C-alpha cells in the first residue's frame, strides 16, 4: 500500500530530534504495551506481516499523530476485538504465554532457511530493476525504489513473502537479496556520486535489467 508509513525520500519532516540518555520506555504503559503485544502475537492468531499491515492501515493523520507505542496499543485493541478474544467462551482454548515461555519466546523470530528446493531467480552481480507495482495490500518494496535499476550484492537465502503472508495467502517462500542502488539512480545527479542505498528485496520484487 502506498501509505504514510512508506517514508523513504519524503521531505518536510524536520530535523532528527535525538534525546540524550533516553530511557527504553518513556512511561510504564509503553513497556506494558510492548509486552502485551508480544504475548498476544505468541498466541499465533496473526503474524508479523499481518500486524505490520494493520499499522500501515492506520489513517495517515493518526499514524503521524500517535506516538510509536500508542500505535501498537491501537492495533492490539483492534486485533483483540477482530479476533473476538474477549468474547464469552473465547478463552481457555488458548493457553496464555507463561513467564518461563516468555524468555524462550524472545529466542524465536521469523524463520528463514537455505532450502535448496527454492531456487534463486538472480545471482550476485546481476543487474535488476525493481518492479513498478502498487499493491493495495502489504508490501515491503518501498516506493522510492520502484522502477529503479540496481545490482544484486548478496543472496540472503529463503524467506516468507510478506505480500502474501500478511493476507494469509500463503508463505510463497523465495530468495531475498541485498540490492545496491546508486544514490544517483534513486535521487538524481545532484546526489553524491559514490553513495548508495542497499535495499533487501524478494525475488518477486525484481526483474532482470
Amino acid at each position, binding site marked *: 500500500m502506498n501509505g504514510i508509513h512508506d517514508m523513504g525520500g519524503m521531505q518536510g519532516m524536520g530535523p532528527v530530534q535525538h534525546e540524550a540518555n533516553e530511557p527504553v520506555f518513556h512511561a510504564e504503559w509503553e513497556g506494558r504495551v510492548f509486552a502485551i503485544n508480544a504475548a*498476544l502475537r505468541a498466541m499465533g492468531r496473526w503474524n508479523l506481516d499481518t500486524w505490520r499491515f494493520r499499522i500501515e492501515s492506520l489513517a495517515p493523520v493518526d499514524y503521524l499523530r500517535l506516538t510509536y507505542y500508542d500505535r501498537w*496499543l491501537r492495533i492490539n485493541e483492534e486485533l483483540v476485538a477482530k479476533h473476538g478474544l474477549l468474547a464469552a467462551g473465547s478463552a481457555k482454548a488458548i493457553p496464555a504465554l507463561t513467564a518461563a515461555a516468555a524468555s524462550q519466546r524472545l529466542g524465536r523470530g*521469523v524463520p528463514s532457511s537455505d532450502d535448496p528446493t527454492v531456487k534463486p531467480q538472480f545471482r550476485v552481480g546481476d543487474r535488476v530493476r525493481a518492479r513498478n507495482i502498487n499493491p493495495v495490500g502489504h508490501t*515491503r518494496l518501498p516506493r522510492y525504489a520502484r522502477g529503479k535499476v540496481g545490482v544484486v550484492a548478496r543472496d540472503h537465502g529463503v524467506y516468507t513473502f510478506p505480500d502474501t503472508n500478511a493476507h494469509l495467502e500463503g508463505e510463497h517462500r523465495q530468495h531475498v537479496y541485498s540490492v545496491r542502488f546508486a544514490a544517483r539512480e534513486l535521487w538524481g545527479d545532484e546526489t553524491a556520486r559514490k553513495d548508495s542505498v542497499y535495499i533487501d528485496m524478494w525475488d518477486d520484487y525484481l526483474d532482470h535489467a
Partner: protein
Amino acid sequence: MAHDHDHQVVPSDPALRVKALESLLVEKGLVDPAALDVLVDTFENKVGPRNGARVVARAWLDPEYKKRLLEDAPAAIAELGYTSGQGEHMVVLENTPEVHNLVVCTLCSCYPWPVLGLPPVWYKSAAYRSRAVIDPRGVLQEFGTPVGDDVEVRVWDSTAELRYIVLPERPAGTETLSEEELVALVTRNAMVGVAKL
C-alpha cells in the same frame, strides 16, 4: 476557545487503556502478568547496546573473531551469548576510512534487538526514516558526524528480516585499552552509523 481541546478526539489516556486491556486479557486467562514482567525486564535491564558494544570490542581485539563476525554474524554474536528475536539474520557492516555505513528502516522500525535492544525514538521518527535514504550526509551532519566527499556512504534500508549493525572504526590511541575499557567507548549511535568514535 477550542484551541486546547484537540486532545478530546483521542479516545483516552493510553495508560488507562493499557490497564484496561491488560486487566481484561488477564481475566480471560489470555495473558499472564508474570510473563509481561519478564518481557519488560528483559528489554529494560538485560538486552541493550552494551551487548553490541561487547561484540564490537571483541572484533577490534581478535582478528579471527572479526573475520567470523563479518562472514556469519548470527553465529559470531551467539558465541557471546546474545540470541533473541529480531536478530536471527544479522549482518555486520564494517566502517573503514573509505566507507561509512548507516542503518535505517524506512517502512517501520526494524532494528537488531539482541545487540542494541529496542530502538530509540529518533530511529523510529518520520524525520529519520524519510531522510536517511535521500540525505544521509545531512542527517549525519546533524548528529555531528560530517563525512568527507572522498568517503562512500552506504545506507542500509532494513526492508526484510535482515538486521544490520555497524562495526565502527576503532579510535586511534586505544591500543593499550582492555576489552572492558573498549566496551565502554562504543555507543549505540556508532553501531547504527550516525556517530563515529
